[in-house]
């Protein structure tokens, strides 16, 4: 295997990391408030509002039901408006964020739902405001579960990012497509697949370990 391919793979890893990390971070910045909103406005939630709850829930479900590859193509004009191009890693971040945010919102909602309702009630009885319950009770209590959710989101986004390689995105996905699919260089493709598996493993393991490390419910 020549130096050129090795350099290519190294750049690929870098681009993949950039895309996936940036997309995960941005979709969490958007997804956490969205998840909290859905949780809090649900019936029996801390600020019930069935109108807001339905609208947000509907939008989340709508975006989630569009297959990623179709979403990717459908929002090309939007992508161009934001990053100025539709090719390369930065351009991939846009559809990745759009696809991942509703997913993240649902993960956050599920994590918050796991928090024992009695604890929320105790906080209410102590005279906490809605915001205090969210920021000082719900999110800190759900932290380990949120972290587990984040590792799942990360691997899902990694999978999506490889698909983005098909339509001009960068990273390992693009290398696998260009060399394995168009040029029949099976070896290169296999190496990229192995690298993807490795990245998933590292993040999955690391995320779960960290989650259980910070979880104070586990006796040590």
């Amino acid at each position: 295997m020549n130096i050129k391919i090795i350099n290519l793979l190294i750049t690929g890893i870098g681009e993949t990391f950039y895309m996936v990390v940036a997309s995960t971070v941005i979709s969490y910045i958007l997804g956490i408030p969205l998840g909290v909103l859905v949780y809090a406005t649900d019936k029996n939630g801390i600020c019930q509002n069935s109108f807001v709850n339905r609208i947000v829930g509907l939008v989340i479900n709508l975006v989630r039901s569009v297959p990623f590859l179709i979403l990717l193509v459908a929002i090309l004009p939007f992508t161009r408006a934001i990053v100025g191009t539709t090719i390369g890693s930065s351009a991939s971040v846009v559809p990745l964020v759009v696809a991942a945010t509703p997913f993240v919102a649902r993960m956050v909602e599920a994590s918050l739902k796991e928090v024992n309702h009695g604890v929320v009630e105790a906080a209410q009885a102590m005279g906490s405001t809605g915001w205090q319950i969210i920021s000082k009770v719900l999110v800190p209590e759900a932290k380990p579960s949120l972290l587990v959710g984040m590792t799942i989101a990360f691997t899902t986004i990694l999978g999506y990012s490889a698909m983005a390689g098909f339509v001009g995105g960068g990273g390992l996905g693009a290398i696998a497509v260009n060399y394995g699919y168009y040029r029949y260089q099976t070896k290169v493709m296999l190496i990229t697949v192995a690298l993807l598996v490795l990245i998933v493993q590292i993040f999955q393991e690391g995320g779960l370990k960290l989650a259980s490390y910070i979880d104070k419910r586990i006796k040590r």
Partner: protein
Amino acid sequence: MIRLVDVSKEFKTKDTKIKAADRINLEIKDGEIFGIIGFSGAGKSTLVRCINLLERPTEGKVYLDDLELTSASKKELLKARRNIGMIFQQFNLLEQKSVIENICYPLLISGVRKKEALTRARQMLELVELTEKENSYPSQLSGGQKQRVAIARALATNPKYLLCDEATSALDPLTTRNILELLETINKKLGVTIVVITHELKVVEQICDRVAVMSNGKIEEEGKVEEIFLSPKSETGRKLVLPDSNSGAAPTRDYLRIVFDGQSSFEPVFANLISELGIKLNILGANTEDIGGKAYGQLLIERPDESNVKKVRDYLDKTKVSFEEVFVSKEVISA
């Protein structure tokens, strides 16, 4: 003072309506320990949650001192809640926070500075005798210790009232007694008015001044603990106090119920009775407990013939021991 005026709470489920609290009128005086007792599903939790408006009554008014909570603004309500501590059967501690952080929580949310909150939290830990657990997490504590932390947390903001919803129901008898003693100390030393919800008679016996008996969302009777324990008038009251006739533990013959409600346990009341009157008495059942040198509970003896009943009656009256004659045959007919 906590005052409930015609408070009702109706739950609507898909096809039915449940009146969990039904036109409740109640006045809890400052400084007392007030019990609410009843069987499961009676509506006790619902009622106590109406006091701090965790559950908003569908009808009626709730007053805390002079403030009508049911029409108070959101801000007033939050402030009032800081004056009403609450503890629960399942403790409800923040599991990702340490003991000291849990106790600091109510202080921090009410704007106390971190350093002062810490000092205050440490004082509270001392009160509940858990100073060595400051940095432990709830998962590392026993049930009794968790409830102590919950009590410290509930009292950190120096509230005037404390609501306890089945606070000892998840604990063993010895731990229950310790927690009840702690609650009593808090009432006596800090002057906190306490509302105790329970389905256990012995909890009421041990610490309450007054008690309300609840069933089907209604208060069936209300009064001093001694009165209700001596002669329960309502059906639920009798079920709670008298031996359970469904379990087969109840006598099938007429009997006398001798009630111990805090006499010195060092005095052998029953032995004296027998030796002094010189009559043979048959014990049908007994359920007594020695709490801090005082006897609580009851002793059931078979009803002797009429002349001896009179002797027993006179003797017990003379020694100021309360008793009640229970006619099983009559009860069966009336039931």
